[in-house]
C-alpha cells in the first residue's frame, strides 16, 4: 500500500514576539488629531498608560507569513480524514463561510432598533423553526455558546420547573458512566448532585438500574442517545417512563443528533429538554475549539422557563425580540447568541433540505457500519450492539503486545490521517472511537480501513513503529509532564525570564 502522506516544507516559526523590531508597523489608518484636549489634560497621570511592555512590532508581511506558517502546522478537516468519534467532524461548506461574512450580518448591533435588523431576526427565527421541525420540540433558545453552556441552560430549566412545582427535594441528576465529562460538570454548576449509574454488560443503561434509584429526590436524567458507543439505548422507552412516573425530567444530550435526522424526533419519544451542537450536526466549523453554538429545545410545558431574549414573529409578519417573560431562567450570556454561527447553520439546513439531511444521516450510519464490518476481525469490538453513526473498538487485541491505544492514534498520523477519538468513552478499555460522518468518500474510507489493517499487523511485527509514532509530523510526541510540572504559559522577554 502506498501512503498518501509525504514530508513537506515546514518552518520552525518563532513566536511573534521574537519577530518584533522597534519601529515596524502592521497597520494603516488615518491619524486622528487632537482638538485641544489631550489625555494629560483630562486624566490624572495615574490612569494614563505609558506603553504596553514588550508588545510586538511587526510589519503586515511578517504577520501574514507568521500566521500562514502556523496554519500550515495544523491538520484541518480540509486537510483530510478526521474520524474523531463523538466530535462529528463533517465538512464545513464554503458558501456558509461567505454568507456569514456578509456586511449585513456583521456590521450590525443588537441594540439597533428592531426595524433596522429584521433580516437578522428573520434568520434567528428561521433557524428556531428549522430546529423545532428536526427535533419535534415546541420551543427553542439559540443563546448558549456551546454544548456545555447548553447543558447548564437545560439543567437550570429543569431546576426552575421543579421549583415552580414547589418540589424542592429533587437534588440529583442521573448520569450514566458513558456520558461526556461536561454532563456531570454542568450538573454541579447548576446546583445539583450527580448520581452516577453504570452501563449494563451490553453497553446500555438498563431500565432496572434506573428503576432502583429513581425516586422523588431525582430531578432528572441526562441521556446521550445514541450513546457514546454509537448505539441506540435499548431500554430508552422504559427509562423515560420510569423517570416521568416519579416526576423527573429527561434531558437529551443531542451531541449525536446527526445519527437521527429524518429518522426520529426526540420530542415525540418523551425527551423534555435537549441540546444540539450546531458545530457537530449542523456543519459549523469547530475553529480549533470554538466558537460553536448549543441551542436548547424544550416541550410546551417548559417553554416559559427558556432564557431571554427570544425572537418571535408578529401577526403582521415582522420579527421582534422578546425581552421579558414571567418564569424565564434569565440570560445566559450577553447579546443575542453566537449569531454568525447561527447564520451558517441556517444556511446549511436550507441547502441540505429535507432529503439532504436525511441522506446525511443515512450516509453517516452506513459509513460507520462499513468501517465496523471491515475492521471487526482486526480490532476487538467490545459490544455486539448495532452501531449507528460511530463505532468503538477496544485495545483487547493488542494491549498484551505492549502497544497502547495512544500508539495506534499517533501511528495514524504517519499515514496522513487524523487520529480517532481515544480513551473515550471511559467504559471501554483503551477505546478507539471512530466516526467517519457522511463527508468522506468511499475511497478515503477504504484508505483508512487499509491503514488500520496495516497498523494491526505492525503491532505484531514492528511495534517500534507505533512506539515512535508519529515520525513524519512537524513535532514528535510532546513532553506533557514537563508542560504541567513547569508551567510556562506565556512568553517573557529573555533578559527577564525567570526560571520557574
Amino acid at each position, binding site marked *: 500500500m502506498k501512503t498518501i502522506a509525504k514530508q513537506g516544507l515546514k518552518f*520552525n516559526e518563532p513566536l*511573534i514576539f521574537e519577530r518584533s523590531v522597534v519601529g515596524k508597523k502592521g*497597520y494603516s489608518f488615518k491619524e*486622528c*488629531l487632537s*482638538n485641544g*484636549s489631550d489625555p494629560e489634560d*483630562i486624566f490624572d497621570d*495615574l490612569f494614563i*498608560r505609558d*506603553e504596553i511592555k514588550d508588545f*510586538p512590532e511587526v510589519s503586515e508581511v511578517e*504577520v*501574514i507569513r507568521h*500566521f500562514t506558517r502556523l*496554519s500550515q*502546522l*495544523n*491538520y484541518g478537516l*480540509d*486537510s483530510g480524514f*478526521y474520524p474523531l468519534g463523538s466530535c462529528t467532524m463533517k465538512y*464545513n461548506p464554503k458558501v456558509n463561510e461567505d*454568507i456569514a461574512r456578509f456586511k449585513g450580518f456583521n456590521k*450590525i*448591533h443588537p*441594540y439597533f432598533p428592531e426595524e433596522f435588523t429584521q433580516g*437578522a431576526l428573520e434568520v434567528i427565527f428561521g433557524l428556531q423553526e428549522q430546529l423545532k421541525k*428536526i427535533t419535534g420540540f415546541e420551543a427553542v433558545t439559540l443563546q448558549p*455558546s*456551546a454544548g456545555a453552556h447548553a447543558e*447548564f441552560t437545560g439543567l437550570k430549566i429543569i431546576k426552575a420547573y421543579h421549583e415552580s412545582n414547589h418540589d424542592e427535594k429533587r437534588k440529583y441528576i442521573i448520569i450514566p458512566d458513558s456520558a*461526556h*465529562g461536561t454532563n456531570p460538570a454542568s450538573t454541579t454548576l447548576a446546583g445539583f448532585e*450527580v448520581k452516577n449509574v453504570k452501563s449494563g454488560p451490553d453497553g446500555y443503561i438498563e431500565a432496572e438500574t434506573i428503576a432502583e434509584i429513581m425516586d422523588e429526590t431525582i430531578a432528572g436524567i441526562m441521556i446521550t442517545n445514541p450513546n457514546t458507543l454509537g448505539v441506540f439505548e435499548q431500554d430508552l422507552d422504559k427509562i423515560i417512563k420510569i423517570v416521568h412516573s416519579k416526576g423527573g425530567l429527561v434531558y437529551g444530550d443531542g451531541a449525536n443528533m446527526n445519527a437521527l435526522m429524518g429518522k*426520529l424526533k426526540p420530542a415525540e419519544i418523551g425527551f423534555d429538554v435537549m441540546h444540539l451542537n450546531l458545530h457537530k450536526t449542523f456543519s459549523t*466549523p*469547530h*475553529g*480549533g*475549539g*470554538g466558537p460553536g453554538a448549543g441551542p436548547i429545545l424544550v416541550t410546551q410545558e417548559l417553554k416559559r422557563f427558556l432564557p431571554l431574549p427570544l425572537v418571535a414573529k408578529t401577526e403582521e409578519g415582522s420579527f421582534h425580540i422578546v425581552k421579558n417573560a414571567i418564569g424565564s431562567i434569565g440570560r*445566559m450570556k*450577553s*447579546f443575542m447568541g*453566537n449569531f*454568525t*454561527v447561527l447564520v451558517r447553520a441556517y444556511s446549511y439546513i*436550507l*441547502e441540505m433540505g429535507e432529503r439532504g*439531511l436525511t*441522506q446525511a444521516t443515512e450516509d453517516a*450510519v*452506513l459509513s460507520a457500519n*462499513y468501517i465496523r464490518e*471491515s475492521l471487526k476481525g482486526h480490532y476487538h469490538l467490545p459490544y455486539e450492539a448495532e452501531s449507528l453513526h460511530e463505532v468503538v473498538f477496544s485495545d483487547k487485541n493488542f494491549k498484551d503486545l505492549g502497544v497502547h491505544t495512544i500508539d495506534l*492514534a499517533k501511528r495514524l498520523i504517519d499515514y496522513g490521517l487524523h487520529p480517532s477519538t481515544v480513551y473515550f468513552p471511559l467504559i471501554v478499555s483503551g477505546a478507539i472511537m471512530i466516526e467517519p460522518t*457522511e463527508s468522506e468518500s468511499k475511497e478515503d474510507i477504504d484508505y483508512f480501513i487499509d491503514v488500520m489493517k496495516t497498523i494491526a499487523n505492525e503491532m505484531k511485527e514492528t511495534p517500534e513503529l507505533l512506539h515512535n509514532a508519529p515520525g513524519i509530523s512537524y513535532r514528535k510526541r*510532546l513532553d506533557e509532564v514537563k508542560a504541567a510540572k513547569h508551567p510556562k*504559559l506565556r512568553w517573557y522577554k529573555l533578559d527577564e525570564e525567570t526560571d520557574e
Partner: protein
Amino acid sequence: MRYLPLTEKDRKEMMIKVAVNSVDSLFTSIPQNYHITNGIGLEEGLSESELLNKLENLSNKNKTFDNVDAFIGAGLYNHYIPVAVDHIISRSEFYTAYTPYQPEISQGTLQSIFEFQTLISQLFDMEITNASMYDGATSLVEAILMSKRVNRKNKALISSTVHPEYRETVATYFNQNDYTEISYNEDGVTDVDSLISQIDEDTTAVVIQYPNFFGNIEDLAKIRNILNENAPKALFIVVIAEALSMGLLTPPGTFGVDIVVGEGQSLGLSPSFGGPGIGLFSCKAKYLRKMPGRIAGETVDKDGEQSFVFTISTREQHIRREKATSNICSNHSLNAVVVAVYLSLMGKEGIKEIALSNFYNTQYAIKILSQFPSIFKVKYGKKVFNEFVIEFNDGIDVNLFYDKLFKEKNILLGLPLKKFYAQETKSLLLNFTEQVSTKSIDNFAKNIIEVIGEL
C-alpha cells in the same frame, strides 16, 4: 448532494459489506414505533445560487454601521478591522481543525493560543491568561466562581456600573444571596461609601468595570486600598468591556487586581449582532490551579524541539467530571487567533494610536454636544475613553427626539439608558470610535438643531 461524496454504487457496495439490503435495515436498533413516517417537514434544499440570493436579501434588510450614523457601543464596538485579519482566519487549517488534542499536528492553533495568552497578559498587565471563554458576561461568572474556590467565601459585590447584561447573566448563574449590587453616585462611578458599608467577612470578590458602562473611569487604586483594608481575602475582579481602552489607560494589573475578565470583540471582531465575541480571562499566577478553561503551555517534543500543548488539564471536565473547576469545553478558540492576528498587526504603537483616535473623537463630540445646554448636557464630564452619557432637560420628549433622529435623519443617538436603568429616563449612552469622522459629528450636531426645531 454536493457535500455527500458517496455514489449510489458506493452505497450498494457498502451495504453488501454490512450485509443489509436496504438503508432502513441500518436503523433497526431504533424501535419501530419511534420512526417518523412523514419526514421532517422541511422544504427541499436550495442550490448555491438560490441560497446566496436568499441570504443576501435577508442581510440587505439590515441597516449596518455603514449606512447609519450609529453612535452606539455599550459593550460591542464598531472598530476598524484590518483586511489581513480575515485573510488569516479564512485559512481552513485554522477554522476546520478540531480542539488541538493531538498537539503534533496542531501546533498552529496551540502556538497562536500561546501568543494570544501572552498578548492579553501584556494588555492587562497580568501574569497569566487562559485560552478564552465565551464572552465577557460568562467570563465574569467564571471569575466569581473562581473567587469562591480561592477564598471559600460567598458573596460577590458587583458595581451597578458593570454592563447590565453581564449582571443579568450573573443573576442566572447565582442565587440572589450570592451577590449584592453596589449603587453608583452622582459622578457616574461606583459609590465607594456604599461599597465599604457592604464589604464584610463573607465578601468573596468585588467586581468593577473599567471604563464602566457609562464610559467613566473607576478609581481602581482607591478600590484596591479599600479591599486591602476591609477585606484582604476578597478578590478584586475588574471587567474590561472595551479592550481597546487598554491602549490609553493604565491596565488593571498595575493596580494589583486579582482577576481581569473582559470581552475581546474590539480586538479584531465585528459586532455581528452580538456574537461570537471572545471572553478574556487573566489572573495572578498563584491562582493557576483554580482557573477555569483550557491553557496552552510550552514544552519540548521527543527531539527537544520547542512545542506547545494544553496543560494543567486535571482541572477540567473531561478528567475531573463533576469536580471540575468549570464545565467549559468548547471555548472561542478561533477568535483567540483573530485577536492574536489583530494585536500583532496593531502592535505597540498601533494600539496606542487607535486608542488615541477614539479618545480624540470622543473629546471632540463632547465639545460639540456641550453646545446645546438648552436641550441636554454631558452628564458626567470629560474623563472618558470613548463613551459618555448625555442627559436631556426636563420638558423634552426624549423618545420622540430619538425616533425622529433615526427615522428622518438616519442617526442613531446611542443607547437609551432606561433600557437597563429604570430611573435613567432621560439619559443616553453615546460611543465614538475611530470610525467616526469629525464631519459626521458636525452633521450630527446640525441635525440635532433641525429635529429639536420640529418637536
